[in-house]
């Protein structure tokens, strides 16, 4: 390595970055390149998952099963869930964290750059492998994203290599990538922080990524174990989960949810981190209760390990277990509530700057309240048994995964786009994107809540005509939501190619990532920074990261 970071000037790095667009298609070990590779790749999977969901909604616009074959319908919702969770929500936030964590803690790169690149390249191959099952004579996996036995191991097509085989192998493969990422993030955050970056000077995003990755490391191997045993049942004829031969299908549910409930927090914690970064920056207030918000992230990690049985209240679980897990489920609302109160208190009596990132963050927080409250409702055993396996559950978790997390990812992209590319996004198109998304998301997912209360079960392609009204609304909302991504794509592509040049710190935010060039040079900082202040020191005249050269933006945001 001959590059001396002290002589890397901004203009040099810009020239180099713009010339080398090809590096995004190569095995590159720079965490910033990998971060963008993750974001773009997972966004393509998001579009694919979105198309699958629109076909599902197209089927559901009429009560009769008339658009697609029922078997294909099962495959569509199975792959929609799998693609969105394992190829969009989780890895896109891994991409965000990849880009931001070394910058936020003042490191030159991740702890293991090569491992990082390998972990990334597993994602596109794993994703294509999973989607290739559409071409198999047996069709795709059809047992839903949770793949419960005995349905998942019935293999009606009789082929030794079938959709379910591919599904299980993809899950194991993507899991390996996630574990590589987890090891890398935890090592980086624990051991690579710049001098002076103590635990309670880390931005909340770093705390949330650490909490999320600890969950991945602790819980994901259990899903891998379950997937291996399910694979044995399916392909080799063992009977771990076959009730007819003494196996226990409920045991699979325990193992599956032991990962897949914490997985929800793996998905939502970085989104909380994004909100905690953006809301202080656009209210010009320090984050209210920084320490409580930081510790609450770890609190969520610990409590969320002990809530999984609330997915199984209807699976014949003994009542002591139901009561215990109802209690722990309610308990996880406490650290989560702390965060919502902290954001509210940060916004309280402040002067809001409603730029696109802030709109998405506010929209996400508002819709998270709906998602969170319906979650607490579902945690109550009596209520859960009533709406179990209905559209109420579907509405609830889409309020989390789309209306909260996907909104947070959009917020993050708009917020850090100037840092990543050195260009500003177009504000007008950003706001159009926000309003279309906000309206579309509520139109799609809110009707599912009353539908569920009325008793419409999920995963069916035909239903009683009495449910038609709400279903039409939800389907129209889904198509609107699909259209809403078009201004986003246009905006990102046009701004990346031709947007206004971004200053180093266009939002006048605090945080180490804003002290370096936009885009940051290789190895990030001309000199490893020394941290002397707590994060979010907005409204304090001496705060360290003001770029005073940019007078206009300073006036615009006031202080």
């Amino acid at each position, binding site marked *: 390595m001959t590059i001396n970071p002290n002589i890397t000037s901004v203009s040099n790095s810009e020239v180099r970055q713009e010339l080398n667009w090809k590096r995004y298609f190569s095995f590159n070990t720079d965490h910033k390149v990998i971060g963008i590779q993750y974001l773009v790749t997972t966004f393509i999977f998001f579009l694919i998952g979105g198309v699958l969901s629109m076909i599902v909604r197209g089927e559901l616009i009429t009560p009769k099963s008339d658009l697609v074959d029922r078997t294909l319908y099962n495959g569509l919702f199975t792959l929609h869930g799998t693609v969105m969770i394992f190829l969009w929500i989780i890895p896109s936030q891994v991409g965000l964290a990849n880009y931001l964590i070394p910058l936020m803690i003042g490191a*030159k790169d991740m*702890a*293991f750059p090569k491992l990082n690149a390998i972990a990334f390249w597993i994602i596109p191959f794993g994703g294509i492998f999973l989607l290739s099952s559409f071409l198999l004579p047996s069709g795709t996996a059809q047992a839903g994203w949770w793949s419960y036995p005995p349905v998942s191991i019935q293999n009606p097509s009789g082929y030794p290599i079938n959709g379910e085989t591919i599904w299980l192998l993809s899950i194991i493969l993507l899991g390996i990538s996630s*574990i590589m990422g*987890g*090891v*890398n993030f*935890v*090592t980086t955050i*624990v*051991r*690579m922080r*710049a*001098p*002076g970056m103590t635990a309670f000077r880390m931005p909340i995003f770093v705390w949330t990524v650490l909490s999320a990755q600890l969950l991945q*490391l*602790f*819980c*994901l*191997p*259990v899903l*891998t*174990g*379950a997937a*291996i*045993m399910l694979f*044995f049942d399916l392909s*080799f*004829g*063992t*009977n*771990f989960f076959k009730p007819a*031969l*003494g*196996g*226990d299908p409920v*045991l699979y549910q325990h*193992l599956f949810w*032991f990962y897949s409930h914490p997985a929800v927090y793996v998905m939502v914690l970085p989104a909380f981190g994004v909100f905690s970064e953006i809301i202080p920056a656009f209210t010009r207030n320090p984050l209210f209760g920084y320490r409580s918000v930081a510790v609450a992230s770890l609190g969520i990690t610990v409590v969320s390990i002990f809530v999984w049985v609330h997915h199984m209240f209807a699976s014949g679980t003994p009542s002591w277990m139901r009561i215990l897990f109802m209690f722990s489920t309610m308990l996880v609302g406490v650290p989560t509530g702390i965060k919502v109160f902290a954001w509210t208190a940060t916004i309280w009596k402040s002067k809001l700057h409603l730029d696109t990132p802030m709109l998405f963050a506010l929209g996400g927080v508002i819709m998270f309240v709906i998602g969170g409250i319906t979650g607490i409702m579902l945690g109550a055993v009596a209520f859960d048994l009533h709406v179990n396996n209905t559209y109420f559950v579907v509405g609830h978790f889409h309020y989390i995964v789309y209306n909260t997390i996907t909104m947070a990812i959009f917020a993050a992209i708009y917020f850090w786009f100037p840092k990543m590319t050195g260009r500003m996004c177009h504000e007008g198109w950003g706001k159009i994107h926000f309003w279309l998304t906000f309206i579309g998301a509520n139109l799609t997912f809110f009707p599912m809540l009353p539908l569920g209360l009325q008793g419409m079960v999920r995963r069916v392609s035909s239903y009683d005509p009495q449910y038609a009204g709400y279903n039409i609304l939800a389907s129209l909302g889904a198509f609107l939501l699909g259209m809403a991504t078009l201004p986003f794509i246009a905006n990102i592509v046009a701004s990346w190619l031709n947007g206004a040049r971004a200053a180093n710190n266009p939002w006048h935010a605090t945080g180490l990532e804003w002290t370096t060039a936009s885009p940051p040079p290789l190895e990030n900082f001309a*000199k*490893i*920074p*020394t941290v*002397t202040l707590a994060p979010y020191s907005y409204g304090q005249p001496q705060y360290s990261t003001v770029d005073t050269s940019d007078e206009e933006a300073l006036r615009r945001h006031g202080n």
Partner: protein
Amino acid sequence: MESSLDKSRSHQVYLETGGKREQDKSNVLFGFTVFLLSESMVFVSFFLTYTILRLTTINWLPPGVSGPELSTPIIINTVVLLSSSVVIYLAERALKRHNLWLFRVLWLTTSAMGAYFLAGTLREWRSLDFGLLTGLVGATFYLLTGFHGLHVSAGIFLQMLMLVRSFVPGNYNRGHYGVTAISLFWHFVDVIWVILFSLLYLWRA
């Protein structure tokens, strides 16, 4: 004593000189430990599956099947694997004292003991009166011993890699984190075997 600015400068120097590599390598040890803790959760899921199925299944042993029996070859096998942990510790100590040839001999002995264990496992598999598809007892037995055997094989492979690298001149100038990590892995595989041995052979119902 030092001001924070001085500290940062010394840190800078530390990073720009050989210190960076040093730090990278000790990160390897940290990261590897994190990985092992995570990997142990796969075993936890298998152990729990075994325990729960065994406690709740009515016909744990199908008619005519006696299940895995504790026999002399298995005890010898266990003793060999567990004592290889001591040998690998001695190998590591020899390397710390720069006794390279003693290290190589002890390191190779560890691998040989691991290979003996694997061969013993295969011999046991062939002598058993049940297969993978013989009820839950067969499925869990072959899954647990097979997955553990896979880890033993991985350990031997990594040991061979380290043995080859020990002949590269200057390989240990910057510490021997790779050797430490693999030794850690070997102890991990041994601890897993102790739990597995207790579950499969000592638990009599």
